[in-house]
Structures are given as C-alpha cells and as structure tokens.
C-alpha cells in the first residue's frame, strides 16, 4: 500500500484506495499482484466485501440416496458420505473468477472428488472398460500436410499420414448397463462445477455446485471446509514476442470449522440451516485470507 501510494503520489498510477472505492477491480487485482502484501490484503478485503461469497453445504444422507438408488442407499451411506457444496458470488467487474472447495480433517484431505471410480468402489460395481479410438488430427499429420503443401504435393508419395489412438469413456448406456447405481448417482449430481454468471455491465459472478465424497471412517477428525475464490484480470502483453495470456490473480481463502466428523450432520444443519434457510454469508462471519 505504501509503495503504491508513493507511486501514485509521484504520478505513476492511480491509488489503490481509489481503484477499490470505484470498483476498478481489473486494475486493482493487477496492482495487488505487483504490489506488497498490504496491497494484496487491501484488495482482498474490498473483493470480499463486494463479492459477498455465499456458501451452502448439504449432506446427502440415506433418505436422499434412497430417492436415487432405492434399497441400496443404506449400504452405500455406510461406505460413503456424499455432500453437496454450493458457492455463489455477486457479479464483479473482473475478467475471470474461479472457486473451489475442499474438506480437511485435522489438516489432512478428507474428501475426494466424486468420480466414476469413487462411486464404483463404493457400490462395488464394475465399470465398463475404456474404448480405444483413433484420429488423424495430430500435430505430426499437420506438419506432414504443411510439407505436402509447400512441395506442391510432390512429397505426397513419400508421406504417410498416421492415426493416433487415444482412450475414451464407454458410452453412457454401457455405464447404465454395467454400473446402474453409479450411473444413477452420477446422473443425480447434475449440474456440477462452476458456471460464470455474466452481468449487464460485463461483470462476472460465480454459481458453483460441487459434490464431494467424505471418508466416513475418520469420525474423530476435526473437519474444516476450505473455500477458495480466485479473481483474475487479463494483463496486456509484454511485447510483440509475448504470446502468453498472462493473468493477474488475487486469491481468497476461508477455513470454516465444522466440528467433529461424527457430528457433521448436526453442525451443518445448525450452520447452514435445515435447507429452507438462506445460505450462510461466510465472509461476513469469517475472515478470508
């Protein structure tokens, strides 16, 4: 802050206070990246105030599971605890936003992403094998094509375009046939991920839905929900040789204590409400750093 303030004083750039006061966050994020820790803290605080990140956590218990996999819900809920975590922000004048969540138990990872493999391990199902496909759209074939073009086709008799093979997932109906429980769970977890929400003035906000699988065996661990939001602004290119898309970045992290894992359902119900209550305003009550 002091450094940027000094620079502003000698007429080099606008002050950080002015930038955040007028919500010029694309500028402020780059100023923070180039500045000191104080500068970054200042911009983080302003972003936290304006982004107003909301988080909501819901555990997917046996009742919820039974709506999707019927009588297998009890068995599955013993092996795996699923949770849905939602994250939303206001729209901000920034180029990109990204959000991520994780749960830690005594500082160690407690969750894993919900993948086909995770679900199959919990349901005891076998997944269909991946299939091998091939394509001629490869870098090598492109170069060969360039060679043919520049030799006016004369190199064609000596050029062999080769396909490259790659693995793809089996089609959905194969998963449905071989792993119906996993497929039903996967299908129930849509939409997933983050979708940017565009504002009228070119701003961007986040609406994310994450699903995580919590290891239910670590019942004595102290659980914390880690939330991270990253704010990015595109930097101009350095010079005519710079083809990178460089982005300035400011990150915020919040760590929300959720108590012991065995009491997670009670704690989550108390913190985030029995569903019908609004999401908790994490930033208002906890410190992002």
């Amino acid at each position, binding site marked *: 802050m002091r450094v940027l303030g000094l620079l502003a004083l000698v007429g080099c750039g606008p002050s950080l206070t002015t930038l955040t006061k007028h919500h010029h966050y694309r500028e402020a994020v780059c100023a923070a990246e180039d500045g000191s820790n104080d500068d970054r803290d200042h911009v983080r605080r302003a972003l936290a105030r304006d982004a107003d990140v909301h988080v909501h956590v819901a555990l997917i218990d046996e009742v919820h599971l039974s709506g999707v996999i019927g009588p297998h819900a009890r068995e599955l809920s013993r092996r795996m605890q699923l949770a849905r975590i939602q994250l939303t922000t206001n729209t901000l004048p920034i180029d990109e936003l990204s959000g991520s969540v994780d749960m830690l138990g005594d500082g160690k990872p407690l969750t894993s992403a919900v993948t086909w493999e995770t679900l199959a391990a919990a349901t005891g199902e076998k997944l269909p094998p991946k299939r091998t496909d091939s394509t001629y759209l490869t870098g090598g074939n492109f170069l060969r094509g360039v060679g043919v073009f520049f030799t006016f086709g004369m190199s064609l008799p000596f050029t062999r375009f080769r396909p490259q093979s790659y693995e793809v997932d089996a089609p959905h109906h194969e998963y449905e046939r071989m792993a119906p429980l996993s497929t039903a769970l996967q299908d129930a977890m849509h939409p997933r991920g983050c979708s940017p929400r565009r504002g009228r003035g070119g701003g961007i906000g986040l609406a994310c839905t994450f699903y995580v699988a919590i290891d239910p065996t670590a019942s004595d661990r102290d659980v914390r929900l880690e939330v991270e939001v990253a704010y990015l602004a595109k930097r*101009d290119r*350095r010079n005519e040789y710079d083809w990178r898309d460089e982005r300035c970045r400011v990150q915020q992290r919040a760590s929300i204590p959720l108590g012991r894992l065995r009491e997670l359902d009670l704690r989550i119900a108390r913190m985030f409400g029995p569903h019908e209550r609004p999401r908790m305003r994490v930033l208002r009550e906890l410190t992002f750093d």
Partner: protein
Amino acid sequence: MTIAVALIAAAARSSAAGSFDLIEPAPPPIREIEEVGASPHYYRLPPNTVGLLSRTTMGVHTRLTGEIDSAPALDLLVGASIRFGRDSALGIWIEGGYAVVRGREHLAVLGVGLARKKPGWMSSIVAVIPHVVAGTIDGESCLGLRTSVVLGLPGYLSLELAHQVAFVGDEPMHELHFGMSFPFVRGGG
C-alpha cells in the same frame, strides 16, 4: 447374475427421479457491482519498462560529394530500451555495436537517444538516436557523429535514415546512411 444386475438397474431406474431431492436453499440476493466511471488502464500494462533490443540493418551508405558514391552497409547493434513508466510511450534507447561500409569504413557505434513506443503489442517505434562513431574510414582513424531516425514495427521491420559526419583528421566527411532491419529489430517493453 444377469437377473441381479437387471433388478438393480430396474430399482435404480424406477427410483431414479434423477435427483437427491435436496431442498434448494433460497438463493442469496445477487448484486451487480459496477465500476464507477471509466476504468483506468495502468496496472494491467506490463510492469517491465526495460527491454533488450537488437538491430541488424543492411543498407546503403552514400558520401555527400555531389556524385553518386554509395556502398553497401551493415550494422550489428544491441542495447536496451527504457520507458519512463509503464504507461509512458517515451523512453530512452541505448544501443551500441559495429558498423561496416564495404571497402571503406569499420566503426564502433554507441548511441543514446529518445524513443517513442506505445506500451503493448504491435505498436510502432519512432526513435531519434545520436551515435558517437569511432574507427577507420578509408584506412584512417576517425571520430564522428551519426544521427539516426528509426521508424519501425518491432519484430518485423524497421527503417533507419541517418546523417553521419566524421572527422578524418580535420576534414569533416558528410554521409547519408539508409538501412533496413534484417532480420528484425527488437525493441523491448
């Protein structure tokens, strides 16, 4: 086994409303934060104000004797450009190197001048660079001044037009120098 799988599939399908029926929490009121006034454009500019440059030019060197008296010339120069701040188009251009005119001149060149290049990508350069030149002209020692005007698109092409006055003994020798960058001029920042 097949029957068991079919039963599981049927159970999954029958119950599969496709959702966990989690009651959606009331969405928070989303505010749209907008910029107050036009955004400045300063900190998004590249922070580097110093860039390396190299300039290899080929051209023609002509003596101003009233007759056509030209010879091919080659300059090999390296240096740096230093902008006066990240949003400043103006800066200092420093370069030095070797200049040769075939059969006539071998010169060491050192120049410091002013350049104007908008920050960012694909912007043109205009520079006025006075150079001190020292070496030999027609086998005799000389000291002189070459004043160059450089116009260019960095990375692609630059043109240089210069006037050189060199003193060989007490005699001033006026020459014109025209050069084109080959293969490139690199002006950093």
